[in-house]
């Protein structure tokens, strides 16, 4: 091949690079490893992580069973190793599955349109806020303190140079948004009120009441969710103008925080303000149903600096995992799964001192009554149980509280052990 292009050696391929730019040393990276050594290396690392522990952590990332079919589907090279489906004629597999994904997200959330997925739930929040700013022509947003703390942090990072002041809303003694604080801070400059339900404490927010209050001043309501399984059972936020959320619960392994799949869904009238990719139905030259990426004039590769967002990628493979998950569980299964989560969480909660009294789905806040949350967690670790999230890290006023989550994966004996750790005195 070198002969064919008239070169003598491989080095000639880079000989025209300016000499003061060429890197002539060797990268300080160990020599290439065999497949066996690579597998061994990662197994050894995995062994230094938690293995074989029961867990009661939720807080945005949930421990749900992954149906076997999910990996069977996403391991097919035709899905795994294809690019973004710009060439519709040879990408109908991906396009059709995304169209199904968009449909299921609408059915689940009660919204009319949804995009092909977002990076994750957290980064979808600023996108929703900016969308609300574009729609209303206003620039301020209010966000409840009961929204995931790291999501709020992402919102602050992303809006700091957009001329978009962000103000937080207090929570009440019941563990939900304080409606009075909302009424106090709401005015005609607010583009959006952002809440989460079930919220970070696991409590269900009063979506309809909040929507009514927001609409009195013409603000849009953005509803966030992190626990998608809840939508199998709880009323979808139909009063919302924009819904964003995280689908990690739908067969995406926790994977130390990512990759996940976020969603954004809204009403039909706002379709041209949605960021990211959208798949639409059309026909081919023979009149057969076909799908393609559509409304690209919102996107950066066409509009450049005038785009609705700089987003380029979606999370197609993760969205496919979620689609397979929703297909396997289906209409009855998702409800039954949600009911199991509800039953497990209420079994565990029934044995513990709850901090808040609002209704909750599969997460709830518990008072640790004089003990340090870390003490309780340390005792649980001895029994190979990872306890709850100590809340002081995010809410200093809740430093004697812990957020616990139970799912269909939580066994009764482990829940009994958690309850016992709250009761008895630690051994000396």
């Amino acid at each position: 091949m070198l002969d064919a292009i008239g070169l003598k050696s491989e080095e000639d391929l880079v000989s025209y690079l300016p000499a003061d730019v060429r890197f002539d040393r060797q990268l300080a990276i160990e020599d290439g490893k065999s497949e066996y050594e690579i597998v061994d290396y990662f197994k050894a690392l995995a062994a230094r992580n938690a293995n074989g522990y029961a867990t009661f952590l939720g807080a945005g990332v949930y421990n749900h069973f992954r149906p076997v079919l999910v990996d069977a589907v996403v391991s097919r090279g035709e899905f795994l190793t294809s690019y973004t489906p710009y060439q519709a004629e040879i990408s109908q597999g991906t396009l059709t599955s995304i169209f199904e994904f968009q449909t299921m997200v609408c059915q689940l959330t009660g919204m009319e349109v949804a995009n092909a997925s977002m990076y994750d739930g957290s980064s979808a929040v600023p996108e929703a806020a900016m969308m609300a700013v574009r729609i209303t022509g206003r620039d301020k947003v209010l966000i409840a303190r009961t929204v995931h703390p790291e999501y709020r942090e992402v919102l602050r990072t992303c809006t700091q140079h957009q001329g978009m002041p962000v103000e937080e809303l207090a929570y009440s003694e019941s563990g939900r948004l304080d409606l009075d604080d909302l009424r106090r801070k709401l005015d005609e400059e607010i583009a959006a009120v952002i809440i989460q339900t079930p919220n970070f404490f696991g409590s269900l927010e009063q979506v309809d009441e909040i929507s009514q209050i927001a609409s009195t001043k013409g603000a849009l309501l953005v509803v966030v969710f992190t626990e998608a399984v809840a939508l199998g059972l709880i009323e979808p936020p139909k009063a919302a103008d924009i819904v964003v959320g995280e689908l990690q619960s739908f067969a995406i392994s926790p994977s130390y925080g990512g990759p996940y799949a976020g969603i954004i869904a809204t009403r039909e009238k706002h379709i041209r303000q949605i960021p990211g990719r959208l798949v639409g139905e059309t026909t081919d030259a023979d009149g057969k149903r076909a799908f393609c990426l559509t409304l690209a004039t919102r996107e950066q590769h066409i509009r450049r600096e005038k785009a609705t967002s700089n987003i380029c990628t979606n999370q197609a493979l993760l969205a496919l995992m979620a689609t397979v998950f929703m297909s396997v569980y289906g209409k009855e299964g998702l409800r039954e799964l949600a009911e199991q989560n509800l039953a497990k969480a209420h079994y565990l909660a029934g044995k513990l001192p709850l901090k808040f009294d609002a209704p909750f789905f599969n997460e709830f806040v518990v008072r640790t009554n004089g003990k340090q949350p870390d003490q309780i967690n340390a005792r649980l670790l001895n029994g190979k149980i990872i306890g709850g999230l100590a809340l002081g890290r995010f809410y200093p006023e809740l430093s004697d509280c812990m957020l616990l989550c139970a799912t269909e994966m939580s066994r009764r004996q482990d829940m009994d052990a958690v309850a016992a750790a709250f009761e008895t005195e630690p051994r000396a």
Partner: protein
Amino acid sequence: MIKKVSKHIVQNESLLFEVSSPGKRGYQLPQLDVPAVDAEKVLGKSNVRGEIEGFPEVSEFEVLRHFTRLSTWNYAIDLGLYPLGSCTMKYNPRVNELVARTEGLAWAHPYQPESLSQGAMEVIAALESALAEITGMDAVTLQPAAGAHGEFTGILMMRALLETRGNARKKILVPDSAHGTNPATAMAVGYRVENIKSNSRGMIDLEVLEHAVNEDVAGLMITNPNTVGVFEENIKKICAILHDKGALVYMDGANMNALVGVARPGEFGIDVMHLNLHKTFSTPHGGGGPGSGAVAVAKVLTPFLPGPRLKRDGDLWKWHHDSPQSIGRVRAYYGNFGVLIRALAYIMAHGGNGLRQATLDALLNANYLRKLLEPYYEIAYKAPSMHECVFSDDWQAKKGVRTGDIAKRLIDYGFHPYTVSFPLIVRGALMIEPTETESRQELDLFADAMISIAKEVEDNPELVRGAPHSTRTSRVDEVTAARKPIVRWKPQPTESQAAD
């Protein structure tokens, strides 16, 4: 003559919603080991939803068959050359998939105790250090979820640094050859965008640049090698021009597959750059994601990196949340960890020498294709190509055939098209990046196909304009899709409703 593919039977398949029937199920949950609860009682009646209208009801096997059938309608790198310029579609090693699914890694919760996360933290630390070595930069963050997200993170850090110097400045310079994400990103960080015209060789014009840089300019976003696959030979001077005026240089690392082991951006003056782990470091594109947009920075920008940062404390890794100048989080948790595992496995498999060899092979493949195609297509710029080559459709346009038509005709020959009509500075661009993982046989098949199409353009342009002719789905009407967007399935109205 079409050598790579033959026709074969393809299965038809309806949407899942259309094959659903009431009561069908594909799951089996375990028996509940605690008492069931009445949802309406514990949640309140108004909080409990009715059934999810239209949601699928299918058996397990129907689900598998459905998605398997859909998969056969896709082209994929596993089926052949995928020459999308700037996208670096290379082989996705399967060992990477295996190790990413190792239980202790795949099931690690981001909030589990640090003492039980040391393996995951070690993956992050090892990858940060390898990428710093490869780029010649001082520190790396793995938090951004994708390339554009990395750009956003990088420009935000630039802004933060300039603010500490007393003036965030007003605009970002972007060459007219840049990816669309660059100007969109600059806007998202609150900067105006000023486009810089490329010279006749497809490179940044030093005079134009010098004229544009002043105290209002926060920085330049540059892609190197640029989007015509050419190394910016004046890169050191370019960086110096910006630095002299107190501005910074951002490098879009989309084309880093041309540089690994051959040149290090940190050594030619770049202040901050992103890497697309899903391009250069072989993690699968998955039909459009997940990506991962690692960002590497020079020392001057390290205080502004998103938090938390990983630090060594004795024998243990710890997350540190205490950097007062940090721009803050750009996403929850620590990044697309599963993608990071795959990228680290790729780097380990190659080693330092292997990475450099991969780069040389990528350059060889691109230049080999350029040589074979140059007699048939007009090369956009004479400058030496790196990992990709860009042609224009000027010769074919005389027969009324454009780059988009040639691309669709390639599909009939069994190949995915190249990147069409980008970069914008080349009229009717054909942007071809074969990557290092293609064999000579595959490259020859591709060149044969391109040459055969060039001849078809002369003899039978209609054949090319009407392509593709052999796909399950013929040319798709994208105009109607955009005019009347239908982005979700709805049940067909029954006859009585339709009559209303």
